[in-house]
């Protein structure tokens, strides 16, 4: 300890103090401050770049997801449209068919009615003709037959029998 104290040089201590203070001040001003701020800046830059990259990646992902979603939506829309078109087509065909059949049945009905009318007209014509014919025949027959009483009765009787049959 005595040796240590004897070795201690106050002058050296003083010089060291001066040198150290000067060194700290000089280095702080010209070296440490610029170095540390540059390092901080650089680290911040790196961090920012990393963040940016991460964000871009996420954006990309979002975009991709969006694209996928859009594609899916488009596909679904297309499917829906196709389905609708098919349905419309089917409906149109069905409608047309129905209309056609209705038209047809209507025409048949008309035809039937016309036929019936024609028939009745024909029957009426026929009846009229038959009546005229019968009257004519009757005239002739009467003219011819009415010579005898018996024949007349016979004829009436016969005619009456026919009439009831008719």
């Amino acid at each position, binding site marked *: 300890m005595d040796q240590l104290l004897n070795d201690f040089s106050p002058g*050296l201590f003083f*010089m060291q103090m001066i040198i150290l203070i000067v060194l700290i001040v000089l280095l702080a001003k*010209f070296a*440490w*401050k610029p*170095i*540390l701020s540059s*390092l901080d800046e650089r680290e911040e830059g790196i961090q920012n770049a990393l963040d940016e990259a991460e964000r871009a990646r996420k954006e990309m992902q979002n975009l991709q997801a969006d694209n996928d979603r859009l594609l899916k939506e488009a596909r679904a829309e297309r499917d829906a449209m196709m389905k609708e078109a098919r349905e419309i087509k089917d409906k149109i065909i069905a409608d047309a068919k129905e209309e056609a059949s209705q038209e047809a049945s209507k025409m048949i009905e008309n035809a039937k009615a016309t036929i019936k009318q024609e028939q009745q007209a024909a029957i009426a014509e026929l009846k009229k003709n038959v009546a005229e014919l019968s009257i004519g025949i009757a005239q002739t027959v009467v003219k011819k037959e009415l010579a005898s009483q018996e024949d007349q009765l016979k004829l009436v009787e016969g005619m009456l029998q026919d009439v009831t049959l008719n």
Partner: protein
Amino acid sequence: MHGNLETINSIFSKGMMIAKKSIKCLAVLAIVFSSFNVFAGGGGTSEKGGQINTPEDIKGYIKHHLADSHDFTLYSYTNDAGERKHVGFPLPVIVWTSKGLKTFMSSKFHHNDDGHVVVDADGVKLAKIHSKIYELDADAEHVSFDETHHATNAHRVMDFSITKSVFGMLIAGLLLFLGFTSLAKGYKKGAIPTGVGRVLEPLVLYVRDEIARPNIGEKKYKKFMPYLLTVFFFIWILNLLGLTPIGFNVTGQIAVTMCLALFTAVIYLTNGSKDFWAHTLWMPGVPVILRPVLAVIELVGFVLIKPFSLLVRLFANITAGHFVVMSLIALMIVLKKDFGAVASTGMSVVLATFIMVIEILVAFLQAFIFTMLSALFIGMAVEEHDHDHAHNEDGTGYEDTTFI
């Protein structure tokens, strides 16, 4: 064709620049070496022609090396005429005597270190005894010693000389300044440093991320970075300079390590937070009777023991390193009689090389430990506790008082 010409041109100019630089370096070296003088000196060992053969001589030589010196001697030899020659250069002596400030070159002492050469500096008689400058009493002509080899008619003066240690510190400071300002300038050119900066930057980052941040904390570490960085590189460079054959022993000077430790102490004592002082002087959570006792223990710990441990650790490690390396080199001489020249030299070289490698590690380690502990103590002082039990749980609080 034009591009080729340009590249050739740029290569040529680069080559010129390098050549210019190396010419500059050579010129500086030449100036430095041409200023080395060869002194003739009457050293204490001159009666044996300067040879160091006995264990006592070796011990003296090592002691001389470990002490500070007033001139810069690279090596000494004895010429054919039996004169002791020293190769090196003198350093300025600046002393505060009873008659004011006196300055002269150390060559005036003629390498004498036992007080036999008395220098008369404007009426003040000065002698150098074991690397310390003494002022003789007014009526004395020669230094007289008592039986324990203490000067009886002289007293020590305040010595502000540019000693070898101061010179070493100046060199280290210059290296630090040049290296780190070049790194700082490098950042203006681009975010990635080139050249020396590429080596220095990881070291700065190391101090910041491994020493300052974990010990002081994210919020407050910035304020202490200049001190920690300066001290780390200063100690490291001086430790490494001490391992070169130039033979500095700056961090092995107790005045130097004491100054460094004192700086740390002043910094953490002046930056102590309210919590720190509250915990140091009136520890919460312990019985009131114990609090004054704890306050005394804590105060002594922070004001005396921690700085003392800092200064002694660095001083002792570096001194021991130098001592061991020099002793192992001296084995060559000591063991020559018993083992022969070849065996003793081989053993000495192998062991000294081995220890030297360890010393390179120690040079870094001690710089690291000093900075680390400084950061730790600063961290303890600036720490702010959220609640009273924080220091019991996080383990970085007062348990660390044992780690001094």
